[in-house]
Structure formats: C-alpha cells, structure tokens
C-alpha cells in the first residue's frame, strides 16, 4: 500500500502556487495577501499532518521496519548513460518528520507575521518570499535524488538571501544577505563536488540506490570508491566530507558559521523560520539522509562530523554568553544546538541500541524547532514593543508583556533541558549516546548544556526582570502585548515546547527504521539537570536584580541569599569565575577570534580579489598597439610553454 501521491505532492505545490500568485498580483491584493498565504500554508500543514499520520500509522511500516518509499519519480535528465537526474518524492521517517516541522513552523510564522509585519510597505512581497522559501525547503526534504536535493538546496539559499535582505534600505541587512549567500555558496561548491564524486563512483544519484551501492563491502562500487584516492584520502571520504562541508555551510558549523549572526538583520519572523527552525538544520538532515554510508563505510568522516559538531557547540555557547543583542544570543544558541545535533549523529551507531545518537539528534531537531521558533517569536514581540535589539534597553517587562514572558520562560526552560520540558528529553538521549561512545564529547556536551542554561537565563532575566517595571506614566509605548495574531503562535508553540518531549520518538524515527525504546534513566539525568539548574541559578544571581536598589533587592530576595555571606563570598567568587574568567579569558577572545580572524579571513579573500581586479585595470589601456603586444606575448608565451616546457 502506498501513501496518497497527490496529497503529498500538494504539500510543496500549494506554497509554490501561492508564491506565484502573490508574486504576480501581490500589489493588488494588499493586506489580503497575508491571509491568503496563511490560509494556503494551513492547508499545506494539514496535508503534511495527514501524510505523517498515514505514513507512521498505516502504510510506512512493513515487517516492523519503516520503509523508504519513493512515491513519485520522474525521469528528468539523462546525465551520462548510467547517471540520471530524477525529480521524485521520497518518504521515510526523517522526511515525513521534516514535512511536519517545516509546514508547522512556517504556519506559525505566517500567522505571527500577520501582526508583526502589518503596515509594512512590501507586505505581500514578504509573504511571497515566505511561500517561496517554504516550497524550496519542502522540496529539499522530499528529494529522492541527491541532485534534486542540490537544486532545492540552492533555491533555499536564494530565498533566504531575499528574506535576510528584506529591509533593503538598511546597509547592514544588505551586506548580511550578501555575506550569507556568498559564504554558503562556497560551502555549496563543496557540496556540488561531493555530489559529483559520489555520483561518479556509485554511478547513480538516486538516494536508495546510492546508499545500497555504497554500504555493502562486496559492492564493486564501494570498492572502487575506496580504492581511488586523492592526496592519500579515498574518493569516498572526499565525497562525504565535501558533502558535509555543504551541510556545515547551511547549518552554520565552525568556521562557516560567520553568516548566521549577521543574518539576524532579517525580519524576526524570518529568523524564527529560516535561521532557527528549518533551513539551518538542513545540514543535519543531509548528514542524516546519507547516514548509512557515513556509519557503515566511512566512520572517519563521521568522526569529523562529531568533532566539528562538538567544537561548534562549545564555541558558540561561549560566545553567546558575551552578546548583548538578543537576536545574536539566539543565533549563537542556535549554532550551539545544531552542533549538538551534529555530534549526536557523529557518535551514533547504526542498528538497534547503538542508533541512539541518530534518534536523539532527530528528536532534538524536532524539539529544538519548537522552542527555538518560540524564542525567536518571543524576542520578536519584545523587539516590537521596545524597538531595540539591545539588552540594555530592556528589563522589567514581565508585567507589561505577561504572555510573552510566560511563553519565553517555557522556551528557556526547554532549551536549558529542565524536565519535563521538551528539550530535556532530546538532550538526555544525545548525552546518553555520547556517554557510551566518547567521554570527551560527553563532558564537553555537559559543560555546553550548563552554559546554555546560563546564557539563556541571562537573556531571560535581562529582558523580563533586572529593571523595575516601567511605570505607566512614563511609558511612551502605548501598546502592550502585540495583537492576537502574534500571541496565538506563541501560545501554540509554548504548548508544543511542553508536550512534544513526551512523544516516544524512537518508535518513529531511527537510523535503521526499527523500533527503539526511549529509555529514561533518572540517575543519568542528575548531572545534566543539576548543571543546568546551576547555570540558571548563576544567571539569576547576576541578572535578575542587577540594577535595583539594595532595599528592594533585600525584600525580593529570600533571607538566605540576602545574607552577607553571599555578598562577600560566593558572589565574588562567581563574579570572578564568570565575569573575569569566562568573559575575559574565554568569551572575549573567542568573540574576538570570531570577529577578527574568521570574519577577517573572509573579508581578506574579498579584499584580495577586488584589489587584484584594481591592479589589472591598467592593462586595459585603450590603445590597440598595446593590445597587439599582449596578443603577441600571449602567442609567444603559449608557444614557449607548450612546445618547450610542458
């Protein structure tokens, strides 16, 4: 039995039609275009949910194993006699899960933007871009062919470029969009070459066949792929690593992450959709898609994935502690969480129990999409209210924005990994997988988890506590919370952040398609949870009341904390450890390194190119005589080079 092809095909087609419609007639539709976009997105999300239901509960499982089902396959281009490019739709647990995530988050962002982007001059353009992005992302996750993936991958890049640069009058937005596009293009280059290498070796680009041909030791394709080498590394490893480079570019892994913080120049709902919940996990999705090849034929490449993941995770967490722009904090936290997903894949095995890391990674991808979208949308509400991204302009907002406050708190608890919120469950699986495989990664992961709790609550307290509530008399913001359209998504996403952790994820998404129990070990959870609580506690000490009057401080604090003991001893030590040690010794240099060396390198490359372009300008003198001399020099040079030297 097969799932309903037309139903599935409609999931990406509806947003595409919506894009065409809004793109061509948007101006006339005006404010109505938002409603139209949202409605079509809702239909698409409904279909995705229906598909997920059909797949997971009715047709997907055969003999206890979830199957890869190609529901539609159109032979498109014959590349060479063996390799063809097809356009198809592949259903398997991860693509179905991504369908749900993408359409759901996209729907939330569509609803939210009705309020957030209201009155924007290019309102309908914004919605048409959102539709285009959703279409590309859905096409990406449904791809049945590596090349199809690449095409949609690029489309996703283009639509992200358009959305980051949406506020085109802001020079910073324009340069950010350019940077994002160029950096990811460099990564995509690796992806393309990787595709060609794998394709030529396996003589196919079809996912099913490709994986089939490259995982069995006796397969002749695999043997040639391992035998041929370049610079001492086998073609297979090159192919997989280059594909990972492509994934690392989209997923903002170090050192290709430089575009992500700048990408926050886009409208906040866009950050929520693209740069937090969907597009940036494309790299994780890609590695997961090719996971059997990684794990069964080329564990070395998987180790690279693991170490890049854990390093990015820690690196980003350290930097997140020092940022003052709230969207940048969230950007770095995204990078850190994606690092989590990456290293979870890196430490995972394939079959049965060993596949815990894979399951954890996908689970975290799922939960993260919910609470990170919530965080961004919450931040959007705050920015909408304050008209600033800077922490110092905020504080004491809990009274003014009660709904945002509560939902944001839920999201913070979820990302910090406090039970029973969603992030706790997925993080547990990841840490458990790391614990069994690689203690170094496990401990670094633990530290990162603690830091995550710290910087998230630093953010939380700085926004909602810290200063006294702005009194009504001096309040120049006449509106409080945003309109209903902005509150509804917050509410729904908060519900999800609480509940999705209880989904028995191992029943649905695993590396080998077989059932894997989500086991829960209370003893194991003690360390991460208490570390996270420690981080929260620390953040509370520093940021909850920083600027309040001592008298008020004493009142609001419990007796224990108000004691001199805290003031003169622990406080100082904590202050020393975090402010001096972490901030100055680790955070500042890391941030500096990020800004100066990594960014600088990227700028240097750009500078060198344009400098060289300036240099050769003189050659174009406008004199025919000098052209003739160059011509003659060329002939002579070629003659000498190719007849006598080469």
């Amino acid at each position, binding site marked *: 039995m097969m799932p309903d092809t037309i139903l599935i095909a409609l999931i990406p087609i509806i947003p595409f039609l919506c894009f065409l419609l809004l793109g061509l007639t948007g101006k006339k539709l005006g404010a109505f275009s938002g409603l139209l976009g949202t409605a079509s997105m809702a239909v698409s999300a409904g279909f995705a949910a229906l598909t997920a239901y059909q797949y997971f509960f009715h047709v997907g499982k055969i003999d206890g194993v979830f199957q890869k089902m190609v529901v539609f396959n159109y032979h498109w281009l*014959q590349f060479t006699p063996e390799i063809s490019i097809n356009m198809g739709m592949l259903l398997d647990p991860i693509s179905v899960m991504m369908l749900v995530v993408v359409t759901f988050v996209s729907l939330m962002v569509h609803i939210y933007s009705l309020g957030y982007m209201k009155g924007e001059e290019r309102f309908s353009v914004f919605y048409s871009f959102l539709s285009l992005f959703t279409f590309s992302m859905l096409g990406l996750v449904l791809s049945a062919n590596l090349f199809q993936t690449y095409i949609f991958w690029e489309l996703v890049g283009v639509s992200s470029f358009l959305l980051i640069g949406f506020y085109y009058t802001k020079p910073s937005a324009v340069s950010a969009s350019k940077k994002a596009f160029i950096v990811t293009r460099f990564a995509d280059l690796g992806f*393309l070459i990787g595709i*060609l290498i794998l394709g030529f070796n396996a003589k196919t680009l079809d996912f099913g066949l490709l994986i089939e041909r490259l995982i069995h030791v006796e397969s002749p394709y695999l043997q040639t792929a391992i035998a041929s080498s370049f610079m001492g590394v086998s073609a297979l490893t090159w192919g997989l690593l280059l594909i990972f480079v492509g994934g690392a570019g989209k997923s903002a892994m170090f050192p290709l992450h430089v575009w992500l913080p700048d990408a926050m120049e886009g409208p906040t709902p866009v950050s929520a959709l693209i740069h937090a919940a969907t597009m940036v996990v494309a790299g994780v999705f890609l590695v997961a898609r090719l996971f059997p090849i990684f794990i069964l034929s080329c564990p070395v490449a998987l180790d690279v994935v693991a170490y890049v993941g854990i390093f990015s995770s820690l690196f980003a967490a350290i930097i997140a502690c020092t940022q003052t722009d709230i969207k940048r904090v969230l950007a770095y936290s995204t990078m850190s969480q994606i690092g989590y997903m990456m290293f979870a894949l890196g430490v995972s095995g394939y079959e049965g129990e060993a596949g815990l890391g894979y399951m954890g990674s996908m689970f975290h991808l799922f939960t993260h999409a919910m609470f990170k979208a919530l965080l961004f949308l919450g931040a959007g509400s705050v920015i909408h209210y304050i008209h600033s991204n800077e922490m110092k302009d905020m504080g004491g907002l809990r009274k003014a924005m009660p709904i945002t406050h509560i939902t944001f708190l839920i999201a913070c608890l979820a990302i910090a990994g406090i039970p029973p919120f969603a992030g706790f469950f997925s993080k547990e699986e990841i840490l458990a997988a790391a614990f069994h495989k690689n203690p170094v990664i496990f401990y670094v992961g633990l530290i990162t988890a603690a830091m995550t709790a710290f910087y998230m609550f630093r953010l939380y307290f700085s926004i909602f506590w810290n200063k006294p509530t702005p009194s009504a008399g001096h309040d120049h913001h006449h509106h409080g919370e945003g309109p209903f359209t902005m509150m509804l998504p917050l509410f729904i996403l908060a519900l999800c952040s609480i509940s999705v952790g209880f989904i028995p994820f191992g029943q649905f998404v695993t590396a080998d398609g077989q059932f894997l129990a989500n086991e829960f070990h209370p003893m194991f959870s003690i360390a991460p949870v208490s570390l996270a609580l420690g981080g929260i506690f620390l953040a509370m000490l520093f940021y909850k009341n920083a600027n309040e009057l001592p008298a008020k401080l004493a009142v609001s604090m419990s007796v224990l904390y108000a004691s001199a003991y805290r003031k003169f001893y622990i406080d100082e030590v904590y202050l020393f450890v975090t402010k001096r040690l972490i901030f100055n010794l680790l955070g500042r240099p890391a941030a500096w390194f990020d800004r100066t060396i990594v960014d600088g390198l990227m700028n240097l490359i750009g500078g060198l190119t344009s400098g060289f*372009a300036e240099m050769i300008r003189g050659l*174009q003198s406008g004199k025919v005589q000098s052209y003739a001399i160059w011509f003659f*020099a060329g002939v002579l040079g070629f003659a000498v080079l*190719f007849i006598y030297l080469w």
Partner: protein
Amino acid sequence: MLLENNLLNFLLVMLQELGLTAILIVLLFAKLMEGEKTSPMLYPLVMVLLLGHVLISFDGNTTGMLFSGMYVNTPLIGMEKGILGLGTLLICLQAGTWLKNHKHSTEFIMLLIATLMGMDYLLSAGNLLMFYLALELSTIPLAALCNFDLEKRRSSESAMKLILSSAFSSGILLFGISMLYGATGSLNFIEISRSFMGTEMEMLALIFIFSGFAFKIAVVPFHFWTADVYEGAPIPVTAFLSVISKGAMIFALTTMLYKVFGAYAAMWYNILFVASAITMTLGNLFAMRQMNIKRFLAFSSITQAGYLLLGLSGASAEGATSVVYFMLVYIFSNLGAFGVLALVSAATGKEEIHDFKGFYKNNPVLSWVFALSLFSLAGIPPTAGFFGKLFLITAGASRFNMPFLVIAALNMVISLFYYLKVVRAMLVEQQDEPLPTIAVPFYARIALVVCVAGVLLTGFFGQIYEYIHTLSLGF
C-alpha cells in the same frame, strides 16, 4: 539524370547557406528599389525567411560533402548553424526599435546575414582555404556593423579597433595555416590529420591557429580588443559579437581541434586548461569592477568563454554536446539580458548599472526578464544556465583534473557576486527618479518571450540534451 541528382544533392546539402544567399538577394533588390522609405513589409518578410532558415536547420538531416571535401555538412554542424541562425533572428527582432530610426536599416540586416553566412561556411569548411575565406567573410561585415552608429565617434573607434586587431590575428592565423601546409603538404582537413609527423613546426602551427581562434573567442590575453569594441558598438552588434560570433568560433574550434588536431589532443588539452583557467579568472576580475552594463556583459561573456573551453577540453562526444548545448542556453540567457538593455538604451540612452536602480518600480516584467537572464548566466538552478554549466563541467571533469575543476567552481561563485550586484540594483535598491516605464514593441516582445521560455524550459527538457548528444556521436 546524374546531373539532376547532383544538383538536388547540392541544393540539399548546402540548403542553409543557399537559403541565406536567397535572403540576401531579396534584401539587395529591396534596397535597390526602395525609394524614400523602406517598405514596412520587408522587415517581417525577412524575419519569416530567417525563421524558415532556422527551422530547416534543426531537423538534423542535412549531411554530405561537396567540392571534393571543401564543404562538409553533418547533422551536428547543421544544428550548430541553426543555433547561430536562431540567435541572429533574436538579435534582429530586438534591434527593431533601434533600427526604426536608422536610415540604413536594410543594410544592417544585410550585413548581419552576410556575417551569418560566413559563419555557416566556416562551420562547414573542410579545407583550410575555405576556412580562411569564410572567416574573413564573417569578420569584415562585422567591422562595418560596429560603425553603424554613424554619428558616434566611439562607434567608429570600435570599428577601427576591430579591423586593426582582426588584421593582426588573421596574420597570425595565416602564418599558422601556412606552417601547417608546409609541414603536411595539404590544405584538406582529413589529409592533414593523417599526415602529422610530430614536428615542432606542427606544434607551432597549432599554437598560432589556436591564437587566431583565441582572439575571436576573446580568451585572455587575446581579449583586450573586446572591451572597447563592445562598448562602442551599437547594442545589437555587441550582442552579436559576444554571443553569435563567439559561438561560431567555438564551434569551428571544436572541429579544428577534434578533427584536424586529434593527434595532438594531449597538447591542446593543456593549452585549453591554461587558457580556460586564466580566462575565467581574469574575465571575472575584470567584470567585477565594471559600471557600464554593456562592458559588464562583455567581460562576463569572456568568463563564459572560459567555461566553454573547459567543456571543449573533454575531447569526447560529451565535450562537443556540452558546448553546443551551452551555446543554445547562452544565446537565450545573454540575448535576454541584451534585449532588455537594448530597449532601455533605445528609449533613454542609459546604460550604467546605477541607472538601473529601482528599475523594478516602473518595469516589473522587464526587470524579471533581466534578472532571470542574469541568474541563468550565473548558473543558478533551476535556470537553463545551470545545466549548461553543469554539463560543461562534467564533460571537462572526465579527466579528473582537480585543480581545473576547483578553479572553474570557484569562478562560478565569484561570478555570482557581480551578477547579483546588478540584480540587486534592479530589484532591491531604489532611487528618486527610476527609469520610466519602457514600451516593448511587438518584435522585441517576441524575442524576449522566446528568451525567457528558453531560459526556463531548456533545462527541464532533458530530450534537448539527449538529441544533441545523438547528433554529436556521429560527429
């Protein structure tokens, strides 16, 4: 009976060139008889005739040899001629607006078709003598065309520079041809290819002849003439030079390298590698800092020539196929861009990139056409340009020359940078007084619709590539 058969055969094999000659004769008589004003029917009539010429070229049946090997036609060559004819037709359609106010519009079309005929003979040449004559036939009318903006000094300068540089390159080419004759004792392609001895004189001949081609294709460092000539010439002529003329030469180079110099494949592979790498890179660097869209397109076409050489270096049926396929796609993409530019320039005289800021505001459709063309030139999927480049790279990759591939891929990224710059100026940036709404006359509209359809659809129909592939197997 025999005579009759021969005549029929002659007519069929040479149908394309004879057809063009017929069009030329029609134009000639029309010119002789025209009074104060050109007949309004002449232009559409010629367009229809030209369309007929294109259509008969695509059926892939014209094949044969005439004049003891002087003239050769194969299905692939027929296809190549069809592609060039299609490009010329599109340029004629786009030039309509500009020509309407020109006193010598009939001559313009005559010269253009004469050039096209020269190119057709060039592709069919099976003999060095024929080759050289056809080459000159395709060059000299071009110089006259460059000078067609009669009152503009830059236009005359452009023609002057083209003539001087062409003379220089022809000299080198002739030198190469005479050396080849000296070394092998023949002018016939097939005989030459059979009598190579491996001497240095033959290698030198290869390099001299390649340099002559390199000049026409604008390979760095033989490209310097292009910027000045392209900038000074009228836009339709610039389009013709950078697309059609280049395409004809790259097709002819394919024949020359694959058929005549097949024995030296290892050597010319290296030549193509170096030439292509330098051309792509420097072409990009030059293009990056151009402010004038015409010059910008001219330099970007240099980079595209670099990719073409990469595909050519594949030295296989795939190599030939990818080159022909890319030219087809390139004609659509580049003429789409030039078409919009020609309309804007004819209406307002503006050609700078910054003039195009906020172009979207009054001309949404035109700016999308322009943007699509640029996307295709930059090779962004799913436009046809992406597939064109992909096939070129795949053909060139058959030897697994990693540095070559990396250089090509890097250049693709760099080129994105400046293509996007223009797109951004049009779609995103604003200015106080953007260009006014520009009327699109009927003929230009047809041309643009064809270009857009080509850019969007060519990639989606795998059959096109497969068809060219079957033709080139017999090549």
